[in-house]
């Protein structure tokens, strides 16, 4: 057992651990402004149509959400059978086994996230209980962070999607047992405003499993 003197010494010494210099405020601010301007320029090349134009079609969106929920749950639970021929992964070259593994893992994760978020959104609309959502979001968040840290995130589009997904999952993970409906609405609005759901669906391969056999 260590004596109290060492505890005090440790506490004092810890204050000097990686002692930060003065914050380079102006330098960082200039870079932030430049980076945000660049991102705005990039996004203006492919403008996303505001979803408010689709408001009259909410009932159709509801049906689509239910269908997507079924598809998502099916993807989560289906006993997958190998395809006759492995579906190619659009890289332009034959992927190495390591890269293919990351692609498979990414596709699986995005597929599960899509199913989860669809279920979450449908549940919010029906006034369901979100207690289980928080636990599932934590699990998906852990996988998401691993993928962000892997070669799967080398692709810029995938990285941006994983980063946006991370924030959404983190928000759901932090929901209290009795979340305010306004909080839930903000999360679901955020999903739609950022185009996360549509980007997820674009990123998730269609069919039973296009990643099956990639290895």
């Amino acid at each position, binding site marked *: 057992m260590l004596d109290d003197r060492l505890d005090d010494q440790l506490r004092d010494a810890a204050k000097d651990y990686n002692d930060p210099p003065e914050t380079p405020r102006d330098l*960082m601010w200039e870079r*932030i402004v430049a980076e945000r301007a660049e991102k705005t320029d990039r996004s203006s090349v492919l403008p996303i149509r505001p979803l408010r134009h689709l408001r009259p079609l909410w009932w159709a969106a509801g049906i689509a959400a239910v269908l997507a929920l079924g598809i998502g749950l099916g993807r989560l639970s289906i006993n997958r059978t190998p395809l006759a021929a492995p579906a190619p992964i659009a890289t332009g070259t034959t992927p190495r086994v390591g890269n293919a593994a990351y692609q498979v893992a990414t596709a699986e994760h995005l597929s599960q996230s899509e199913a989860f978020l669809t279920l979450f959104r449908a549940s919010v609309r029906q006034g369901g209980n979100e207690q289980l959502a928080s636990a599932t979001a934590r699990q998906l968040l852990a996988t998401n962070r691993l993928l962000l840290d892997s070669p799967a995130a080398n692709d810029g589009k995938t990285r941006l999607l994983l980063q946006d997904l991370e924030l959404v999952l983190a928000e759901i993970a*932090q929901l209290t047992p009795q979340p305010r409906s306004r909080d839930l609405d903000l999360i679901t609005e955020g999903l739609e405003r950022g185009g996360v759901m549509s980007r997820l669906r674009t990123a998730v391969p269609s069919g039973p499993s296009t990643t099956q056999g990639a290895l």
Partner: protein
Amino acid sequence: MDDQELIGRVLAGDPNAERALYDAHVDRVFRLVYRMAGDLDRAQDYTQETFIRAFARLREFRGEAALSTWLGSIAISIALNGLRKVRRLRDREVALDAVPPMGRMTPEAEPDLKVRLAQAIDGLPDGYRAVFVMHDVEGYTHEEIATSLGVHPGTSKAQLFRARARLRDALADFAKE
């Protein structure tokens, strides 16, 4: 001006409010990521990325936690992800060059407690190190840490307890001096 008012002005497109929000929180964010990274360039990158992502997502800030806590959760997530990448790259380089691992100096080469402690903190698992730095070095509460890391406050306390125990073990010979 409080955070809510500032956020409202930022969302209304006021560039001065953006800068004011940044000025109000940048020190705390920078301090945290610098403590984690121990490197000026990386700390700047992580701080910039934190604010870029925060501004992009500000509309989704629910106000349940303080804005500083929300920013802290983005910052620590970016820092941990970034540091994992750096470590992996460094490990690969070390393996290629067959250089002996760093951070294992002989007792004669260890000048004082601070150096030894820094090495011991560097050697903690990411989760323990984040909790230790946030609580014991930067003074975050367990509630703030829990919100930032997406864990329960009890988990934060347990990780801090284990982190301190590891540091005590690593520096036990100082107790004998």
